[in-house]
C-alpha cells in the first residue's frame, strides 16, 4: 500500500514530478489549491461574472463544470451556465450528451445545447463527407475545431456570458504547443496562454483555461473521485491525428523523465512572453469583422465562413445551401 505523504492514509495518487503521494482528501485539497492559484495568478475572473463553461461531456469539462459550480457557492457575484456544442458525431455525441445532462441536472445548472446541424445545416459527419467528396485537404479535427470555437464564442455571448471557461488542461496545451512549433505557427502559440488576449472586438468573449496547470491525469482523477467519469467513448476521429501521436510521445517522456510536462509548460509561458513583445511581427494585423457573418476574424472572412464557402454549404450572403449530400 502506498501512503499519503501528509496523513499516512491510503494514497490515490502519486506525483512523481513533485515526489508526493496523496490520499483522496489531500488530493482534492491539492487540486483545489492549484486551480485557485491559477485563477488568481492569471486574473481569470472578477467578482461579478457570468461564466459560461464549455462542456463536451468528456471528463475534463465535466470536472471543470463541477469544480466551478462548487467554487461559485463562495462567490456571490458569479453565475455559472453550461454550454454544449453538439457537432453530430454518430455513436459518440449521443452518449456524451447523456453524461452532460446527468451532471447539469445533478448540479442544477442552467445550460444550452447548440447543434452544428441547426447552425450550419449539416452535422460534422456530413461536413467531413462533403469535404472528402470535394477533395478538400482538411483533417476532421480542423473542421471540428474551427466550427466549435466559432459556435462557442457566438453562443456564450448570446447567453450573456462575460467570460468563457474551457477545460483545456496542461497536457492539451503542451500538445498544441508542440504541434504549432512543428507547423511554424507562432501566431497560434502567442494565443496559447491561460487567458486569451483582450481582443478589441465587441463580439469577442474572453476565454480562460482554469485547468491550465492541471495534468490530464489529475482532472481525470478528480472526475473519478466525484463520480463524474462519463461512459468511456473515444471520438472516432481522434486517432491518427498528429495530436494523438504527440500525446503518446509526451507521456513516454514523462514516464522516463518526470517533470517533463511542467517543464514544457514553463517553456511555453516563456516563449509567449518573448513573442508578445514582437506581437506586431507575428500576428496578422488587427482583428476585423467577418464580411459575411460579422463575427471576429483575422482576415476578410472568418475561418468558419471560409470553410463553409469552400464546402459549398453556404452562399456569399450567408444562407445555408441544403441537400449538398444528395446531389453528388
Amino acid at each position, binding site marked *: 500500500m502506498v501512503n499519503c505523504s501528509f496523513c499516512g492514509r491510503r494514497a490515490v495518487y502519486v506525483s512523481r514530478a513533485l515526489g508526493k503521494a496523496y490520499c483522496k482528501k489531500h488530493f482534492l485539497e491539492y487540486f483545489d489549491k492549484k486551480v485557485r492559484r491559477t485563477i488568481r495568478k492569471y486574473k481569470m475572473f472578477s467578482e461579478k461574472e457570468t461564466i459560461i463553461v464549455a462542456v463536451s461531456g468528456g*471528463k475534463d469539462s465535466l470536472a471543470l463544470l463541477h469544480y466551478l459550480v462548487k467554487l461559485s457557492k463562495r462567490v456571490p457575484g458569479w453565475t455559472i451556465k453550461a454550454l454544449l456544442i453538439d457537432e453530430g458525431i454518430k455513436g459518440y455525441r449521443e452518449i456524451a450528451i447523456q453524461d452532460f445532462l446527468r451532471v447539469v441536472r445533478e448540479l442544477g445548472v442552467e445550460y444550452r445545447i447548440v447543434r452544428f446541424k441547426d447552425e450550419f445545416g449539416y452535422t460534422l459527419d456530413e461536413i467531413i463527407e462533403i469535404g472528402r467528396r470535394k477533395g478538400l485537404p482538411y483533417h476532421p479535427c480542423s473542421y471540428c475545431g474551427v466550427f466549435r470555437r466559432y459556435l462557442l464564442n457566438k453562443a456564450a455571448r448570446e447567453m450573456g456570458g462575460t467570460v468563457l471557461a474551457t*477545460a483545456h488542461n496542461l497536457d492539451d496545451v503542451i500538445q498544441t504547443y508542440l504541434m504549432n512549433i512543428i507547423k511554424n505557427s507562432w501566431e497560434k502559440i502567442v494565443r496559447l496562454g491561460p487567458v486569451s488576449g483582450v481582443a478589441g472586438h465587441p463580439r469577442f468573449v474572453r476565454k480562460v483555461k482554469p485547468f491550465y496547470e492541471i495534468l490530464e491525469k489529475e482532472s481525470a482523477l478528480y472526475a*473519478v473521485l466525484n463520480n463524474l467519469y462519463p461512459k468511456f467513448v473515444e471520438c472516432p476521429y481522434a486517432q491518427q491525428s498528429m495530436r494523438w501521436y504527440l500525446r503518446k510521445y509526451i507521456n513516454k517522456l514523462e*514516464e522516463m523523465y518526470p517533470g517533463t510536462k511542467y517543464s514544457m509548460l514553463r517553456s511555453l509561458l516563456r516563449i509567449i512572453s518573448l513573442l508578445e513583445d514582437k506581437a506586431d511581427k507575428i500576428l496578422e494585423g488587427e482583428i476585423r469583422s467577418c464580411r459575411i457573418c460579422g463575427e471576429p476574424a483575422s482576415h476578410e472572412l472568418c475561418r468558419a465562413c471560409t470553410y463553409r464557402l469552400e464546402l459549398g454549404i453556404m452562399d456569399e450572403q450567408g444562407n445555408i445551401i441544403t441537400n449538398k449530400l444528395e446531389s453528388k
Partner: protein
Amino acid sequence: MYYREIRYSRTKGAVMGKVKVKIIDTEQEWIVEISAPTSIKDILEKIGLSPEEYIVSKNGEVVPEDEEVSDGDTIILYPVVSGG
C-alpha cells in the same frame, strides 16, 4: 468497434497468481500471471499500456500505479486520454 481481447502474459518462474485487467466500458481485458510481487505499473508495461494514460482502481478502490497486486485482484482502468 471494440474487440474482445483476453491476452495471457507470464513472468519467468513459478506462477504465484493471476490478476485480471480491464479497460472500463470496452471489451479489452487481460489475465496476467505473476510469479513475484509486482506493481500495477509493471503489469501495465507488460501488456503495453502507459501508466500515464490511466486512472487505476484495484478491487474497486482508486490506487496509484505504484501499488502492488496479488492473486485474484481485479484492476479496472479509466482512460485519461479521451478528449474534452
